[in-house]
């Protein structure tokens, strides 16, 4: 009797409250991005003027461009390096190094950020977009190397052996056999690194020069300085884009249970 009460009412209500907790802030944000009032908290009628202002803001477009370039470069570097490493590195080395790559995730991001900043300062490298790409790439490696390693272990190694037996060089095997087989996990990894880089704030804050402003840096600066209503519109657009990305992830073949 008590158990029935529990599973029929308490449980679902708790879960519903949880979802409410997750989505009330995001919903309010979306609604208020259409608010005609500049002082964001009192509703004064519907308007799309902040979206128009967003569209015409050169600063936002510039920040978006920076973010895209940095994220694209990090994706390319991460995927190239980790797939080469997984395939060409000897199994022993790879397994030993794996722990080191996991370490990237076990470190509070701010420690890595001030460490990188000190490194650049120490070696007289001026902060720029390049240093930012270096930072994002190392963060991405921590995610991609373990994923790629797992998926590579799951591959049927007889394909690789057959390819070598039939006279292909290691490079040909890598290019013609391994990469196509790994394509789905490459795609997932690419999406993951792209989003990690695109969303990252802490590393960008410490490792980019003043002239390199990514989108999160722009949002941070705007919120801090009392926030123009453009930020609400921009946030809503980003929210929609994230929704789209998650939809794509759900539609991808070979999604494992859980995260993707």
């Amino acid at each position, binding site marked *: 009797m008590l158990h029935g009460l529990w599973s029929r009412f308490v449980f679902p209500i708790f879960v519903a409250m949880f979802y409410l907790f997750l989505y009330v802030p995001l919903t309010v944000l979306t609604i208020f991005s259409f608010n005609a009032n500049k002082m964001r908290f009192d509703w004064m009628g519907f308007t799309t003027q902040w979206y128009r202002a967003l569209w015409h803001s050169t600063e936002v477009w510039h920040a978006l461009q920076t973010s895209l370039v940095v994220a694209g470069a990090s994706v390319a570097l991460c995927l190239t390096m980790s797939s080469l490493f997984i395939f060409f590195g000897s199994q022993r080395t790879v397994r030993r190094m794996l722990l080191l790559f996991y370490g990237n995730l076990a470190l509070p991001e*701010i420690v890595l950020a001030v460490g990188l900043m000190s490194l650049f300062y120490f070696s007289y490298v001026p902060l720029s977009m390049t240093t930012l790409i270096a930072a994002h790439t190392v963060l991405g490696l921590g995610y991609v190397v373990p994923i790629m390693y797992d998926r590579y272990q799951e591959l049927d190694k007889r394909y690789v052996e057959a390819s070598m037996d039939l006279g292909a060089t290691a490079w040909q095997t890598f290019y013609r056999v391994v990469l196509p087989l790994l394509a789905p996990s490459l795609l997932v990894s690419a999406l993951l690194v792209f989003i990690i880089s695109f969303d990252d704030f802490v590393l960008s804050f410490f490792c980019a020069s003043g002239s390199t402003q990514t989108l999160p840096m722009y949002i941070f600066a705007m919120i801090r300085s009392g926030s123009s209503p453009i930020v609400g519109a921009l946030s809503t657009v980003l929210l929609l884009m994230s929704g789209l*990305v998650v939809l794509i992830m759900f539609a991808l073949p070979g999604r494992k*249970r859980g995260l993707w």
Partner: protein
Amino acid sequence: MRKVLRLFSRELPFVSSLPAIVWQFFFMVAPLVIIAYYSVADSSSWLNISFVHYKNLFESTYFKVIARSLFLAVATAITGLLCAYPVAYFIALRVRRFKNLMLFLLTLPFWVNFLVQIYAWYFLLERNGLINKVLLRLGFIQEPLLLSNSLFAVFLVMLYCYLPFVIMPLYSTLEKIDHRLLEASADLGATPWQTFWRITVPYSMPGVKTGLLLVMIPAFGEFVIPALVGGSKYMLVGSLISYYFLAARNNYAGAAFTSLSAMVLIGTLLLVIVISRLYSLRKS
């Protein structure tokens, strides 16, 4: 020349596996070494070692900052776990219809930009924000509460932002539990609660541990949330580190404080691991 070329082409596979390792050493290991070096460096000479930066940190203010961050991180992780466990359990083991939709809605906030999530809370926490308005309307309070710029606001927003980190590993371990185990337990006469405590909880422990770690570690060094909703009253580890490196421009003291905080974090985690090992040893 030919020999060199041949050698090169023979070693090419090996060489091409190197960039990832080199990158990792340059941009992950080297920065940590530099931080460690700065923390014990003597500013007068290159090679001298001194612990003066650490000595300066032996003051209660600094330890209070570290303790406050640690407390906040633990509180966030445990509250997050208590909120997330029933939900993950429900979706993994109870729901049949709408499962994909519920998973989708659960995954979405994880991919939303951190700053967007924080900004969304502004609309709720401000003096004339949504929470105050609702509470005033309902008559629970007469005066608007001061919710933003407090430690509570930091805790709430951290909980919100880190929930996905605890719920995802939990969900994936709960999902993998063999249903036959649960059925067998019920068949052999266990009550649902007994089944829950004896089967489900032990099997989900890996997910619990991963989730707690994934929250505690970043929450300990969190810098953005306190900077945006925390106000200036309470210093946390992340804010103090950024103060040293960006505002005070004192790399030596900053490195010492960073190392000290990292050591406290690692020490705490090790202590927890040792205690839980001892506990499980005694139990068996």
